[in-house]
């Protein structure tokens, strides 16, 4: 059993045979698997209650429209069952000392108040919990109880109690046949010795409410792209039905606004977020695919359509030709709400025709750029890593050593290094695994 339950003996792990992977998103999972498949031990630390990262929240992925859960869940399974991977979810790295071949890592194992070895994930406790709070996995659009799993394929399939909202009524404790709930559980600090570290801490979305003129937070029918993903996802808050938040109706006209919090020097995000053009096109296609005849008008307002990867340009052309998505080159000036219908009006200039547009949509989706996750700076400082001006982890020689940080034995994969899509994150995860395995096999030397 590799869910690192309470019985895992970390002190018996040999540092030069063990790697630490920080982050359980798709890059971290790939790195963990590739290192573990080489017969090394891996400790995978993930701060949320489940591995899967942002990819677990998505509905479909570009450019194939593969269902994200379908391609991810077997990976989650593989990681959780791998004899060489020790999964520490709901845990965080507090500090690191030492050097390649012998890093000493302090890890905080937050108290889930549920005993991992005993919980079977049956969910019997849930109906008994009287506390209902917003579900952060559903981007606060749906609800969960204080005792919860993030999503149906939560890995490990073990419940967690949100102590900030738990009222300690103990109704769940009484309902659990396996006596798996222990409200007296405390946070625990452990120390492990590892020979190499892979940082795969992923990303966060830009807070689009910073663009007041685009109406997010003020108008119910202006949402962000991740909220849209949850709305169209079959395991999301509406069971996969794309509905307006103001009145539950199917929006017949949808506007997607690109580059919100990207390529904007004034908002401190001068860099390109690399994935938003493609996810915007994908979301636009999904609106048509899901709703068929109901959605008449899907418009994407963009600066450049960066369809650069394998199959991307073809996907973009398909959006135009087969799905009839309208693409308007122009930054949106303002979004205004019609107070009666709650429809939203987009003011933009079509820079290709010099026309000023006033387009009425029943829903507007803002596509945010991506940022380094909170806590990355502290982690970088702790490890002695450099950060670029973009806030992501620096790599010394991007051309020849694209995953090597300036600290020997510490590697970076996925969006922790800079924005990238799933295939590039997966390739980077494997690359970091390769480099880490060299460090381990050489006892710490590079």
């Amino acid at each position: 059993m590799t869910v690192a339950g309470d019985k895992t003996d970390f002190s018996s792990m040999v540092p030069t045979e063990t790697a630490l992977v920080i982050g359980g998103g798709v890059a971290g999972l790939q790195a963990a698997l590739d290192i573990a498949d080489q017969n090394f031990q891996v400790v995978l630390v993930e701060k949320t209650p489940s591995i899967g990262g942002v990819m677990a929240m998505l509905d479909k992925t570009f450019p194939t429209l593969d269902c994200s859960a379908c391609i991810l869940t077997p990976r989650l399974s593989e990681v959780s069952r791998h004899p060489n991977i020790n999964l520490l979810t709901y845990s965080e790295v507090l500090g690191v000392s030492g050097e390649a071949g012998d890093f000493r890592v302090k890890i905080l194992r937050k108290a889930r108040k549920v005993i991992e070895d005993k919980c079977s994930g049956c969910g019997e406790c849930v109906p008994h919990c009287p506390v209902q709070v917003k579900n952060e996995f559903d981007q606060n659009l749906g609800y969960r109880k204080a005792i919860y799993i993030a999503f149906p394929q939560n890995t490990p399939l073990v419940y967690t109690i949100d102590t900030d909202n738990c009222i300690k009524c103990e109704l769940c404790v009484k309902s659990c046949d396996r006596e798996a709930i222990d409200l007296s559980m405390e946070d625990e600090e452990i120390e492990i010795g590892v020979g190499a570290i892979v940082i795969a801490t992923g990303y966060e979305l830009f807070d689009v409410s910073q663009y007041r003129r685009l109406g997010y937070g003020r108008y119910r029918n202006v949402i962000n792209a991740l909220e849209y993903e949850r709305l169209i996802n079959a395991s999301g808050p509406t069971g996969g039905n794309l509905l307006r938040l103001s009145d539950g109706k199917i929006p017949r006209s949808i506007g997607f606004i690109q580059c919100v919090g990207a390529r904007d020097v004034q908002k401190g995000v001068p860099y390109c977020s690399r994935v938003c053009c493609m996810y915007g096109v994908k979301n636009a296609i999904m609106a048509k695919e899901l709703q068929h005849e109901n959605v008449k008008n899907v418009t994407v307002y963009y600066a450049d359509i960066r369809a650069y990867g394998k199959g991307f340009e073809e996907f973009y052309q398909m959006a135009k030709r087969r799905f009839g998505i309208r693409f308007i080159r122009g930054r949106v000036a303002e979004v205004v709400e019609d107070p009666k219908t709650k429809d939203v009006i987009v003011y933009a200039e079509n820079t290709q025709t010099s026309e000023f547009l006033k387009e009425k949509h029943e829903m507007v989706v803002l596509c945010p750029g991506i940022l380094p996750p909170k806590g990355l700076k502290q982690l970088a400082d702790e490890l002695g890593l450099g950060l670029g001006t973009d806030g992501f982890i620096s790599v010394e020689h991007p051309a020849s050593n694209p995953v090597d940080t300036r600290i020997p034995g510490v590697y970076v994969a996925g969006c922790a290094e800079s924005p990238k899509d799933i295939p590039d994150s997966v390739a980077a995860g494997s690359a970091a695994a390769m480099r880490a395995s060299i460090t381990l096999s050489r006892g710490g030397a590079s």
Partner: protein
Amino acid sequence: MKQTEYTPNIVAFTCNWCSYGSADLAGISRIQYPPSVKVVRLMCSGRVDPLMVIESFKNGADGVMVTGCHLGDCHYSTGNYRTKARFEALQKAMKLMGLHPDRLRLLWASASEGQQWAEAIIDMTERLREIGPNPINNGGGGK
């Protein structure tokens, strides 16, 4: 007489590498086509024994497609050359069996040709609607 109401029953023998991939790609690309074809997945189109095609018609299939990689691209290097030779022999046999030659079709499709897969089925379904169900066994018991 065009029988637009019936959905022809078509058996499609595919190879695991190219033509099965083209069928997958048609679905991945969400290209819509009639649900007339049922795929029998084999490793190579060279596995298709003429007996299987004949049995299909005997059982009442309205059409049979033999599909595989393009000549020269066979995953097993020469398998599909055999397929081609057998197909030509089968075409002659169609006459002897009293079946319309358009009921048997050969399709070379690479794994990146989803559009071609869908088009071949749309085309064949249309044609089978024109020529009617298999006179042997009244189009079989399949719906």
